[in-house]
């Protein structure tokens, strides 16, 4: 049986844990409420670059030690950076819980040595180049940039080569001091664990970290209908994404939004599936929900031959219009059943559960048990979806395309 615990250290570090005595492992993660949206244009890409620098050594350890010590525990460890958070985690066998937490605490006190900083710049530039060979990623970056315009969510996570080359070591150190500290982060633990031990270890290894207040700018996004076509004759396929306003990560309607996304755009059995993929008009047709901090988005993504993409877009938009008029109980039930299964499956794996809990806390400072999530999900019905599509009627819409097609409207 799962049980939840929470505590706060005197320096303000939040600790949350979900204990599962049936697990074979323990997952630990430090989540920081910072990402590319908290950057200025001058230091764009610093959040993600800093995430890399954490693995390049602390005052106590060299870069070789950082990786070696995790590997000596057999840890599954990594980190990720989004527009709104950066997280560092390790999944270990329970006997390594203390060692893993201690090492995570060193990881988050980086030395940022100038020589390591210069070397790692090249790795970041390679990562940027790698994503340029991925049409889906190019399209997504463009979509966020165009859709959010002057809003900070438009900032690229990786940054541009120019901003990375310009970035100075001391700018990164200053960003670290301003953003990384209790008050702006949470330690999340799941799996087989003893909560008292986790709190004692957190006090021992993170208790001396200075508190940080790191407010986040929350300007209101200004949405308008727009379209941007990227022409690339090297590509065979035409890729299209569109984004429109949706509920935020704090909005109660986010649960209904998840159900709606499944009804409209799940890879199997959804409205988009039957209208676009079953008949092979498009190879892929997804519709999803992307909640952000204080605002949110729905998106659609289509991949098709260049000659079919406009037809596919027309059909997708017609489906969005239709769902506003009629949505039936059976398809809602099916979507809920699929989402319920994914909740159960996620709950059985400590790493998945930890990522979900930590992320939730960063947005809402709230813990939700699987039972609560399940109950909220079960309560979604036709009325909630009707209300949702009235409040968020899929416009204004930002459309971006990439591929060899002319890109002309028509």
């Amino acid at each position, binding site marked *: 049986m799962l049980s939840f615990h929470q505590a706060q250290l005197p320096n303000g570090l939040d600790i949350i844990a979900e204990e599962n005595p049936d697990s074979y492992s323990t997952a630990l993660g430090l989540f920081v409420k910072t990402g590319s949206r908290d950057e200025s244009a001058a230091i764009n890409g610093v959040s993600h670059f800093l995430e890399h620098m954490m693995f390049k050594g602390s005052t106590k350890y060299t870069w070789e030690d950082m990786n070696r010590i995790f590997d000596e525990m057999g840890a599954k460890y990594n980190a990720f950076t989004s527009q709104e958070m950066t997280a560092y985690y390790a*999944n270990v066998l329970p006997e390594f819980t203390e060692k893993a937490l201690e090492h995570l605490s060193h990881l988050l006190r980086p030395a940022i040595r100038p020589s390591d900083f210069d070397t790692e710049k090249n790795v970041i530039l390679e990562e940027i180049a790698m994503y340029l060979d991925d049409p889906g990623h190019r399209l997504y970056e463009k979509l966020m940039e165009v859709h959010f315009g002057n809003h900070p969510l438009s900032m690229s996570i990786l940054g541009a080569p120019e901003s990375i080359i310009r970035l100075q070591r001391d700018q990164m150190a200053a960003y670290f001091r301003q953003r990384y500290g209790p008050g702006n982060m949470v330690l999340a633990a799941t799996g087989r664990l003893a909560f008292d031990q986790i709190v004692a270890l957190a006090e021992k290894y993170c208790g001396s970290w200075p508190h940080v207040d790191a407010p986040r700018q929350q300007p209101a996004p200004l949405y308008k209908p727009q379209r941007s076509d990227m022409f690339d004759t090297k590509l065979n396929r035409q890729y299209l994404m569109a984004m429109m306003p949706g509920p935020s990560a704090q909005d109660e309607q986010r649960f209904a939004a998840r159900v709606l996304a499944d009804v409209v755009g799940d890879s199997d059995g959804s409205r988009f599936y039957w209208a676009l993929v079953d008949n092979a008009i498009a190879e892929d047709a997804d519709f999803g929900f992307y909640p952000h901090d204080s605002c949110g988005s729905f998106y659609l993504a289509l991949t098709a031959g260049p000659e079919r993409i406009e037809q596919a877009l027309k059909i997708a938009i017609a489906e969005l219009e239709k769902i506003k008029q009629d949505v039936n109980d059976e398809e809602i039930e099916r979507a809920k059943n699929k989402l319920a299964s994914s909740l159960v499956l996620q709950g059985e794996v400590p790493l998945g559960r930890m990522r979900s809990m930590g992320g939730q806390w960063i947005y809402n400072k709230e813990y939700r048990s699987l039972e609560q999530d399940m109950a909220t999900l079960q309560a979604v019905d036709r009325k909630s979806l009707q209300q949702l599509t009235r409040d968020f009627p899929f416009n204004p819409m930002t459309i971006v395309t990439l591929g060899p097609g002319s890109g002309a409207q028509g």
Partner: protein
Amino acid sequence: MAERYLQHTFANGLTIVGQRMAGMQSAAMTFLLPAGAASDPADRSGSATVLADLVLRGAGERDNRQLTDYLDSLGLQRSASVGVQHSRFGCAALAAKVIEGLGAYADIVRRPHLPQAGFDAARDLALQALAGVDDEPRQKLMIKLREWHFPSPYGRNTMGEREDLEKLTLELSRADFAHRYHAQDSIISLAGNIDFDEVKSEVERLFGDWKGPATVPLTLLPPPGRFHHIEQASEQTHIGIAYPSTLETDANYYAARMAIEVLSGGMSGRLFTEVREKRALCYSVSAGYSSLRGIGSILVYAGTSNDRAQATLDCVMVELHRLQQGITGEELQRAKIGLKASTIMQGESTSARAGAIAHDFYMRGRIRTLDEIKSAIDAVTVEHVNAYLKDHEPGPFTIVTVGPKELKLP
């Protein structure tokens, strides 16, 4: 305590394997059919891929939409894919729903409708997916690396070739279905919260009278050559290297496997350390063990900007050769704990275990328990690994590159 593992082969040649997992609410199913790309008819590559889509478009009493709606109503998280050796159908959900869904899967593999409209769409989607490969050079590289490394037909692209897909007809697909979807050598695997008596009798009821022809053995031919460059104006140069290794069923397997872990296990692995951390030549570099029945291989990938590609290839080759000089006790220790932790954590996922025991049965004719795997890992010594490495000079190498410029080969 009740048995935790189940293995039974029915008179018709179908095998059921199972693992009961305490504390789980879910179950997962993996269904392997002896219809992989390797056994696609000679001039009909991609046939298994089209078939794996087509069989889902209506089966038994349910038409296309009814079948998908039914599987969705059970909340099944589903997958369908084609590998070199098998067509694979998988699902996971609350255990009772997975068991309930078995009847529909029996319809899918035994009584699919194989309709004309469904065939046209499935083939169209296969052609679209194939056209997309050119847009993603990394994927293209890995397909070509397999083609140039493995003896034919093991090196075949599971997606098929354009000319073959264009020639495919519904009649040919129907004939292929009759030929390759059969009980002999099929494996159904279930893991999670299951009752062995229940699943065994249910599988017997649904598949006991399933017949069909026997599997036809393959004739192997050498691959086209060792070195291949594909010119493409990509952002990065993508490098693939392959060479033979020990069979998964060989007494030396764990010695060989440990060596690969030392090369590319955790982030302290030699490739990551030398190529990325020390020299910052690339973002992505890795090596892994690939197992087919009767063929063990090491596959290596690196993606790097074009002006660093030669240095990257040279540096990777140095590391592959340096392995022969042996590994240290500390390196082995890290490799062992890493592999052991992965093995134990696999026990937290019903999907991972359903897949693993199906693979085990296919490779060995029996399931290995997690304890057996842990003991095998524990038993490896530095002396054993180093003796193995000394006797096995790496190579011969197959090297494939995708990028704007050909590299100088070693």
